[in-house]
């Protein structure tokens, strides 16, 4: 009885919600096809892929793909690079964005503030392809602006594109460069939200402007900072493929210092056509990401319930 009742109410609701469901249909179908169906494709990581066999017809080969990935030493290298780059991006990025936000609010010249904020926002709008061109302008051995400066000061040219040690700094620079305007917006909003009476009280107590920044502004935007920090930690195993591919490209000389999980997975797929290996790398990354995001979300929820995703 109960079952029949249940299915009855289910059908009733189906009727009641038919317009809602119709409106949801495109997004649901899209998500099923382009997000859920590919999840089944992770079996590829355990197969020796052949074009004729496809995903389902190709023979299993157990953990062969993973063994190769881990034994070649690449797994350790790309994971280390990905994590270290992301840590640097997160720390330096957060610091710069907060500094920009704090200083922008201290600037009284309206025009100066508007124009400089717009200028910092500009890099957000261009593609990484163009950033790749810019990096070449600045760091190319023969035409680069930096080498032009060095030689005009009487120094020796540096061949950046064959010097892997330079790339962590170059990549860090462009990562900060592209995100500073975008990232500081959140902190600006947080600073705008601070109750002005707190500042008045600080002033009455005789705080100077630096004390005002370090004793009022910074502590007051800490909650926002912690939430944003935690959220970016969730993506710590995700390499920014767009950036690495456009700045480094297929320059094998630099891989030791610049190869991240995503670029290795792409090369395994596109250059060596090794679908199984690429899928294994992808699955390795997906699992790491899932675990970190889940942990981070728990932490965010513990810190402030409103911000947790589920």
């Amino acid at each position, binding site marked *: 009885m109960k079952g029949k009742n249940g299915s009855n109410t289910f059908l009733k609701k189906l009727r009641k919600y038919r317009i809602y469901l119709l409106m949801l249909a495109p997004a649901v179908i899209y998500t099923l096809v382009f997000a859920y169906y590919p999840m089944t494709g992770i079996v590829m990581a355990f197969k020796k892929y052949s074009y004729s066999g496809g995903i389902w017809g190709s023979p299993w080969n157990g953990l062969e793909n993973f063994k190769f990935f881990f034994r070649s030493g690449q797994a350790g290298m790309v994971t280390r690079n990905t994590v270290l780059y992301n840590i640097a991006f997160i720390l330096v990025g957060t610091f710069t964005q907060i500094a920009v936000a704090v200083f922008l609010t201290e600037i009284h010249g309206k025009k100066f503030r508007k124009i400089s*904020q717009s200028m910092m926002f500009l890099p957000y709008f261009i593609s990484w392809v163009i950033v790749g061109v810019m990096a070449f302008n600045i760091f190319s051995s*023969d035409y680069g602006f930096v080498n032009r400066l060095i030689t005009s000061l009487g120094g020796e040219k540096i061949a950046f594109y064959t010097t892997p040690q330079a790339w962590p700094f170059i990549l860090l620079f462009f990562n900060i460069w592209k995100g500073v305007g975008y990232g500081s917006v959140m902190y600006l909003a947080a600073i705008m939200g601070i109750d002005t009476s707190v*500042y008045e009280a600080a002033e009455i107590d005789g705080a100077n402007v630096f004390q005002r920044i370090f004793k009022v502004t910074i502590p007051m935007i800490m909650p926002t900072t912690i939430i944003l920090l935690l959220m970016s930690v969730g993506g710590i195993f995700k390499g920014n493929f767009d950036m690495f591919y456009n700045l480094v490209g297929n320059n094998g000389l630099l891989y030791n210092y610049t190869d991240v999980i995503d670029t290795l997975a792409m090369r395994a797929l596109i250059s060596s056509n090794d679908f199984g290996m690429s899928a294994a790398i992808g699955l390795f990354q997906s699992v790491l990401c899932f675990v970190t995001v889940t942990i981070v979300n728990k932490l965010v929820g513990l810190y402030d319930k409103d911000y947790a995703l589920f």
Partner: protein
Amino acid sequence: MAKEATHLGKVKKGKDVMALNIIAYGFTGLMALLCLIPFLMIVAGSFSSETAITANGFSLLPQDFSLEAYRTVFREPIVVFRAYATTIVLTAVGTALGLLIQTMTAYVLSRRDFEWRNGFSFFFYFTTLFSGGLVPTFILYTQTLRLQDNYLALLLPLVFSVYNLLVMKSYISAIPDSLVESARIDGCGEVRTLFQIVLPLIQPALATVGLFIALAYWNDWYNAMLYIKSDTKYPLQYFLYQQVNNIESYKKLISNSAVNSAVVSSMSLPTQTLKMALTIVVTGPIILAFPMVQKYFVQGITIGAVKG
């Protein structure tokens, strides 16, 4: 920023204020300049003569002013215009379609009388936590759907995103329920409620999310790299990527040989300045549109990050 930082307005002018002013103006000014300089370099390079660039390298001001590079770009204007047309059509269609899907979905997910909304919300959110990854998606597009070299392979990947859905949803959730309820009582159907009551109220959201989608299409080169093989179908950014990298690999080749200057001068067409001019032609519109749309992005970031 819409709001002005006037709450820091009246401060006594002491030594500390002076010091802070110097640091604040100095730091902000320096950051802003650093952000602008790479753009200036491209502009300067595009208006320089090839020989000056080869001799001195890139600089902040045009050297030996020349329009040769632009002339070379427009020697075969059809090539650039074709890429432009591809990107413009893709951006327009993708943005319209994306807005429609995202608005409908966000509307339903923010309806309190829809009991299944939490289940569906999780259905969407989960895809941000776990994904099949590169290879299964690649096989889906190329072998299951056979979309290789098809414009749909450029349209579909960006048409729907959970992030945009969240931004849209937080705008729609802010509309008072009573408004939708009263429309319902007046006999307004769901579809009409959405399009005649809700849509006019969320115009800022449409602008913000629309611009997010449009920017994603405009700057996309990744999907073209994966799925597009014929160069006549390249969208703008991948077109630029291809041109720039062919010039670059050529440059690398000749810079390794001892007689590079002779080889370069034997080329009748500019290479470095050509790259710059091409970049300007490709970037121009987005830079010009930027001042008008900046505020919508600021809104979207503030809303999206809180709930994203």
